[in-house]
């Protein structure tokens, strides 16, 4: 009996605390992808200064973001990998892209500086499959006749944690090499076939392993390659040009994509047409429910991302993310107006 009384008291206190926490000014909770976290947190900070609205974003990974929004424990979820339209419909979710980023291969070979070594998608796939084991392999030499490539083992550095970056990268390798697609596949984590490989946690983990291990090759978000002054590779794009990763080449890939014809904005910006398009480019997405229980909160989320689209571009570029072109933003906002409803009424504008 006494136990029950204790239990009742504890429950009462917990409920009272929970009720107290809800009576606050507009607070929005989001969770998901770690790739856009630095940007979202800066945006949220600035937005809080300007409007007083509080945005909590927890960088728990895309998988976690999807699970949390499905469970409705957050007001918006974030994912680096777009959900397929049927999955969106099944869960009653809308997704829209926010910013674009690029993934770049990085190498650590003595004497090779950033932008010097060239790869094609197929060659990259063969290296990551472990079929090409030495840096002075004829296949690499033929593509890079001017470089002095050493007789050194290649060590593959990949992400140890599941990651949208890995998804984008393996998707690109799958596009470039049917063998990769068949034997390894595309995913946020895959079974890396090369025998000489190590996994680093996060972009920073991969970056530091590549820098530490002589003869390593890995892949990181562009921003990490820049910050760590790593030797990134030049890739052959669909138009047949060798392009250098940069904000401009990511923008080219974004501009050349046909967003209008992509239901649910499911579009992978890998291997897009265009002379200057960087071939491993992807958008990061926000997920919200179509049917909103709380109109004020839903509107708060839209308002925040509207502000990000309109005023957040400069902050994005400073952190090496690419803002979406204006016409894509228009499309996104038309989707908000059409699909997101509270009590049967549209929430936006």
């Amino acid at each position, binding site marked *: 009996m006494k136990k029950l009384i204790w239990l009742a008291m504890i429950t009462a206190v917990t409920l009272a605390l929970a009720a107290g926490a809800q009576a606050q000014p507009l607070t929005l909770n989001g969770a998901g992808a770690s790739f856009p976290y630095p940007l979202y947190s800066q945006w949220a900070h600035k937005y809080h200064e300007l409007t007083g609205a509080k945005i909590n974003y927890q960088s728990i990974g895309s998988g976690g973001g999807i699970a949390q929004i499905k469970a409705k424990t957050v007001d918006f979820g974030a994912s680096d990998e777009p959900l397929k339209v049927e999955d969106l419909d099944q869960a009653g979710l809308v997704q829209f892209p926010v910013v674009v980023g690029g993934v770049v291969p990085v190498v650590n070979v003595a004497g090779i500086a950033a932008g010097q070594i060239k790869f094609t998608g197929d060659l990259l796939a063969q290296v990551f499959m472990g079929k090409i084991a030495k840096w002075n392999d004829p296949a690499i030499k033929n593509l890079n006749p001017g470089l002095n490539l050493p007789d050194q083992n290649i060590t593959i550095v990949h992400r*140890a*944690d599941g990651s949208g970056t890995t998804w984008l990268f393996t998707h690109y390798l799958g596009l470039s090499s049917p063998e990769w697609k068949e034997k390894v596949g595309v995913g946020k984590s*895959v079974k890396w076939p090369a025998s000489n*490989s190590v996994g680093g946690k996060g972009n920073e983990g991969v970056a530091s392993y590549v820098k530490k291990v002589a003869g390593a090759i890995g892949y990181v978000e562009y921003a990490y390659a820049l910050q760590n002054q790593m030797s990134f590779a030049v890739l052959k794009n669909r138009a047949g040009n060798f392009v250098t990763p940069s904000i401009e080449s990511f923008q080219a890939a974004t501009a050349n994509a046909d967003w209008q014809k992509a239901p649910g904005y499911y579009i992978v910006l890998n291997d897009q047409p265009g002379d200057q398009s960087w071939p491993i480019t992807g958008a990061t997405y926000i997920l919200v429910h179509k049917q909103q229980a709380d109109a004020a909160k839903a509107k708060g989320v839209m308002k925040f991302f509207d502000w990000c689209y309109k005023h957040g571009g400069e902050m994005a570029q400073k952190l090496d993310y690419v803002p979406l072109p204006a016409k894509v933003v228009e499309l996104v906002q038309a989707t908000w107006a059409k699909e997101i409803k509270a009590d049967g009424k549209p929430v936006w504008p």
Partner: protein
Amino acid sequence: MADLALPETPAKTQTWRQGDLIFRWLSRGCAFLVPALIGGIFLALLIYSLPAIKKFGVGFLVSPEWNPVAQEFGAASSIFGTVVSTLIAMLLAVPLSLAIAFFLVELAPPAVSRVVSTLIELLAAIPSIIFGMWGLFVFAPFLQAHVQPWLASTLGFLPLFQGPPMGIGIMSAGTILAFMILPFICAIARDVFLLVPRTIRESAFGMGATTWEVMYKVMIPYGLVGLIGAVFLGLGRALGETMAITFVIGNSHRISASLFAAGNSIASTLANEFAEATEPMYVSSLIALGLVLFLITYLVQILAQFLLRRLYRSWSAGL
């Protein structure tokens, strides 16, 4: 006056009794909380890992396959990494900490002993992520540049020391683990040695025993039960260590004979992959890995108890 004072006394006793009763229930509740938590965690692990257990069966324990794309999972590489890195840690840490403890108790001047003891306790207070970062940025490059090439050139004929030296891998993970469990084993071993009565030690010296003989034949047998306890405490910690291992083990689902190669442990796999695992079978397999770790740790504890009881009867002279 006496009339007024009388009713007070029973009232006081009453509150005392009530307080006693509440305290008894409170402490009983706290004591039951622990088995309830352990049981609850075990049940939760079991329930959530059922889909993986049903699909893979016993094969889960022996299959080295870990392929999230094909949804094929096996725990062998993670179990292998956990066991091997712990084994390396124990091989390095146990003799080292016993030697340090003996030095502190028997050989060092009191001032040195005090300072070193404090430092060793401080080592135990360093958060494991600091060990991980130090391992990644300082220790692994040192292994790569100096230790591993030397091992490869002298003992390279053994499969243990083959392959390119990368620094990060099973070897650095085991060594970092050794640094992490050393203070625990050492601190307890020191206390155990201190409990060996002075007279026994001095009579051994008096009979002409060397310092080595005193340690090997007197101090260690006398405190054996305590020392075994210390070793198992370190072992338990090494098995479950996560952050530091994740930094330096190389996180690769592979079983390799070479200590230079990258591997993974159960804890590091969980730390790496849980956040982004979306498919139900993937999540279930990760939880099944957690269950395996739970059972391994539990078995180690049971083994420790068993060993302690047997040793207590047959070997130990003192504690």
